[in-house]
Structure formats: structure tokens, C-alpha cells
């Protein structure tokens, strides 16, 4: 398969206005991925599937990722005058990067036996605008996996033919795979509790004493 740079160049030519950038993977696998803007994602996806040199006709895997708000610390050297002497002082600048949800697609080509190409989509934030375009119209196999990402992460896929919860029941309000999810407190009986579970079990101890 071509390099990611080549693919991005050709995709930009095929879909004018699309913004694609490489998200580098620093691990030894060096499996870099491509971040696509939401507006042009469907057009880019169609290009990747139909382009004769790529023919990425198989979406093997759709995953959700939750990124919380993170505080980035950056150290800079600043010149300040202290007691009449100019000195260079290190200062830490804190910037908050707002959190977002991410969907990762692993694309392969059955026809040309190549892949994977890893595609990422990002939502604007983690609350009300957690919307990305659905790629199910391009890869039908993504349907249930997008439903799963909707169920567990609360990512809304615009254009999905049948967006319902798939694992949890209708009427369930939470998104269990989000990092700030708190599970229901049903730790009434913990025979070998330790650490976090022990703390939760202790809260029930007093109530349990009545029956013992």
C-alpha cells in the first residue's frame, strides 16, 4: 500500500476542501493513523473504498475512545528582572485541552489484500455535540459496531440507519465506557473486598449489621 502521505495527497485532490492529517503513533508498532474532518468524512471514505489503488472495502473494526479534558504543562524560559538583575527563569504555562470523543476505523482491502488504514473521527466535545458522521452507508459492516460505540460512549452517528442501544437496554441513561462513568453501587456483599471495592463495601456495612 502507498504511504500515508501519498494517500492523503490523493484524497485531498479527490475531495477538495477535506482536511486530513496524520496522527503519529509513537509506539514500536508505528501504526500511524489519519484524522479526517467530520464534514468531508463520508466523501473521503467513499474515495478510500472506490479508489482503484486502495479499494479499502472492509471496515474490520470500529472503536470508540474517550479523551477527558487534559491540562497540558509546558515549560518556557522567560527573562525577568529581579532585584535589578536580569535573569532567565523557567515558567510553566498550563493550557487546558478540552476533551472529545474519538472513533477509530480499521480499514482493509479484501480485493487487493492490503491494509490496515486507520481512520479517526473526532467529536467537538464530550457533551451535547458528540456527533460524527456515520460511515455505515459506505461500509455496511460498521452498523452494529457504530451502535456499540453509541451505546457505550454516547457518540451519535449522524446518518446511521438504525441508531439504537445494542448491549444495554432502552432507557439506560449512562455511557459505561466513558472514563467519568460511575457504576451503580451494588457492593452490599463483598466477602474478600480490598482497595476500591473495600471502600465501597464499607459504606454498606452499617446497614448490613441490622440483619446479621
Amino acid at each position, binding site marked *: 500500500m502507498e504511504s500515508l502521505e501519498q494517500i492523503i495527497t490523493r484524497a485531498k485532490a479527490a475531495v477538495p476542501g477535506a482536511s486530513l492529517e496524520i496522527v503519529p503513533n509513537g509506539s514500536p508498532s508505528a501504526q500511524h493513523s489519519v484524522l479526517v474532518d467530520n464534514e468531508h468524512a463520508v466523501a473521503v471514505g467513499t474515495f478510500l473504498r472506490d479508489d482503484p489503488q486502495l479499494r479499502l472495502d472492509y471496515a474490520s473494526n470500529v472503536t470508540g475512545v474517550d479523551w477527558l479534558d487534559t491540562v497540558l504543562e509546558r515549560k518556557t524560559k522567560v527573562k525577568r528582572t529581579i532585584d535589578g538583575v536580569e535573569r532567565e527563569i523557567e515558567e510553566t504555562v498550563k493550557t487546558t485541552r478540552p476533551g472529545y470523543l474519538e472513533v477509530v476505523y480499521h480499514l482493509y482491502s479484501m480485493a487487493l489484500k492490503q491494509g490496515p488504514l486507520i481512520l479517526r473521527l473526532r467529536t467537538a466535545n464530550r457533551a451535547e455535540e458528540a456527533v460524527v458522521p456515520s460511515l455505515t452507508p459506505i461500509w455496511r459492516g460498521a452498523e452494529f459496531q457504530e451502535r456499540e460505540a453509541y451505546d457505550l460512549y454516547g457518540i451519535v452517528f449522524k446518518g446511521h440507519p438504525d441508531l439504537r442501544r445494542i448491549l444495554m*437496554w*432502552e432507557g439506560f441513561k449512562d455511557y459505561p465506557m466513558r472514563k467519568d462513568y460511575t457504576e451503580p453501587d451494588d457492593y452490599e456483599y463483598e466477602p474478600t473486598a480490598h482497595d476500591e471495592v473495600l471502600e465501597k463495601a464499607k459504606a454498606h456495612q452499617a446497614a*448490613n449489621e441490622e*440483619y*446479621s
Partner: protein
Amino acid sequence: MDEGLRSELRKQGILTTTLEELYNWGRKNSVWPLGFGLACCAIEMIATSMARWDLARFGAEVFRPSPRQADLMIVAGTVTKKMAPQVVRLYNQMPEPKYVIAMGACAISGGPFKQGYNVLKGIDRYIPVDVHIPGCPPRPEALLHAFMTLQRQIDEQALTGAARPRHLHADAPSEFNVPEYGAHDLEPSSNAEVWRPPSVGEEGALAKTA
């Protein structure tokens, strides 16, 4: 009847029994399980019923596809919170006398999924369980042992008196509350008439009984 006299009569070719013994003997040797499985434990349950372990030796080979014809519910596998109401409803649809074997770590406590958001921490929170089997999954021998334990329990049931089994009590409940899907969890999270959390910990039940 005196046990010595009874065995003496037996040597002479005279069999004596009581109605209670005969009734329990009949019941314990014809326990029909409900044919349903929830996870990998079900595979062991199926293996138990096949030629190698042969559950038929104990009169329990007739797995019924309908709860109306079953006497025994083997809860074989992980009970997810989505599945729990259906399991309780199946139990409610079984006729008395009915028994429950909770098979495997998941069915008795939630097992390796205990700290997840979606798995019930033991089916005994909603329905009365007669025999618990640990194991992940338990071997067929363990299920056979549980089955023999259940047979012993049935054999020892007195048909009259205060300790008589539930199906001979007009007032004892045979149906239990089916939990409903809530916004965050099943509601209620346990049936108070079936299950009360035992006290554990340093000042808990272990210290008190000692």
C-alpha cells in the same frame, strides 16, 4: 420406625417404608431441568448430560424446553443485568416444587465480571438458590455433585410440620418480583424477601459467630 428393626425385616424379605420416603424417593429421581444456558458453563452442563458423564443415571436427562414442565433451573453462566428479568420470569413460570442450582462463579457472585457495570452479582439476589457450585466453569463432576446434593436435600424434606418445603406451604411465595430496567441499574437491585446482604469484615459476621 427403628432402623435396626427395619434392616432386620429387610433381611427377611419385608420392605417397610413411609409415604414421605416414597414420595421424596420418587421426586428426587425424576428432576427435569430447564434446558437453557447463559454462557460457557452451559457447555459443561451439556457435557454432563451426554454419554461421558451421563446425567441420566440420576433421572435428570430430560431437559425441558418449557419452564411449565421443568422442576430444576440450572443457572449455567453469567447473568447479565439485561438477562436477569427474563431468568426471574422463567423461574416464576416453573411449577412447584422447583429448585435452583447456581452453576459457576458468575451465577453465584458475578465472577470475574463482578466489578463491571452490566453483570448481576449473583442470581441469589432475585431467586432462592438451593445449591451453589463454584468454578469457572465447574467440571461436570462438580455439577453431578451439586445434583446429588440437591437429591439429598429433597430426600431430607419433611412433608409436614413447620419445616416443610415451600410448595407445601400455602402462604409461602412461589413467584418473586421481576426486576425492571432502570436508568442506571436494575430496580430493585435485589429482592429483600430472598436475599439480605450478609455482614462481612472485621466486626462482621465472622467475628460474631466465633
